């Protein structure tokens, strides 16, 4: 996974907001967050392949109390700034009248690949019968 994304997930999970990657199976209590790679934002092709890729990262936070807004937004934006620099924006703020939840949505961009890291080479076999 892109290093910036992995770092962002870790930073968000270190905040006071319960964060899940890609979604929750059951609705948490009042405040919760969801983070995940969303789609390819752009790529640079060359030598019959994609050389550089950028992905959109979506960070959603739902909370109920208006008084919590500054603290929640501050914590998420501090994590975004420390991991993505300036490559993020607050894409939308919504209030759901049905559930009475505030919904903040941030979109950021990370570069890298989503391929699995190369496995570590096998350790050299111990040489027997010597010494």
């Amino acid at each position, binding site marked *: 996974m892109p290093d910036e994304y992995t770092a962002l997930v870790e930073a968000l999970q270190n905040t006071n907001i319960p964060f899940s990657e890609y*979604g*929750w199976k*059951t*609705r948490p209590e009042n405040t919760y967050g969801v983070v995940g790679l*969303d*789609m*390819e*934002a*752009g790529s640079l092709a060359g030598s019959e392949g994609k050389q550089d890729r950028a992905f*959109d990262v*979506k960070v*959603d936070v*739902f909370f109920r109390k208006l008084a919590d807004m500054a603290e929640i937004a501050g914590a998420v934006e501090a994590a975004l700034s420390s991991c993505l620099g300036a490559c993020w924006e607050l*894409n*939308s703020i*919504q209030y*759901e009248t*049905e*559930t009475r*939840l505030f*919904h903040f*949505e941030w*979109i950021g961009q990370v570069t890298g690949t989503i391929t699995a890291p190369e496995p570590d080479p096998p350790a050299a076999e111990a040489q027997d019968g010597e010494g």
Partner: protein
Amino acid sequence: MPYTMKTDGLEDVEKLLTTLGDKAGAVASAGLYEGAGVMADEIQRQVNAIRTEEFRYTVFGQRSPSPEEKAALQSVGAGIAKFDKNGGEVDTSVGFSNAGYAEVNGKRKPIPQIANAINSGTSFMKAQPFFRKAVHSGQRKAVEAIGRGIEDKVEALIKENGG
């Protein structure tokens, strides 16, 4: 031995450049109009691709928009805002702002709110970021269209000036 060079048409070029200076706003507007049209079409294409479902009750984070919600966006289409001209700079925006209201499940709802809820998702509806998809896929086409629009307008101005 000195060489001499003779060129024709420099006066015409000078005249054209002067004309373009005066009409920079019109040239930029012509280009932007083409680009905004391409982006509006791309948004409409993505709106048509929104998944919908009939539902009786909402499951946490699960449901898709209703057919009525999709139809509300399809009925108005993405609009192009009035061009904001400032000398040679021209700005506009494409989207659902000021798109009015639609009747959804017996309730009157603002269309921009419906678009925002589908695009960003809610606590009970999966996000379908049709707008961002349109921007990603339409950006290059829009830039190309802006270039074509500018070229066409410049050519038209050259013809007007007898070039």
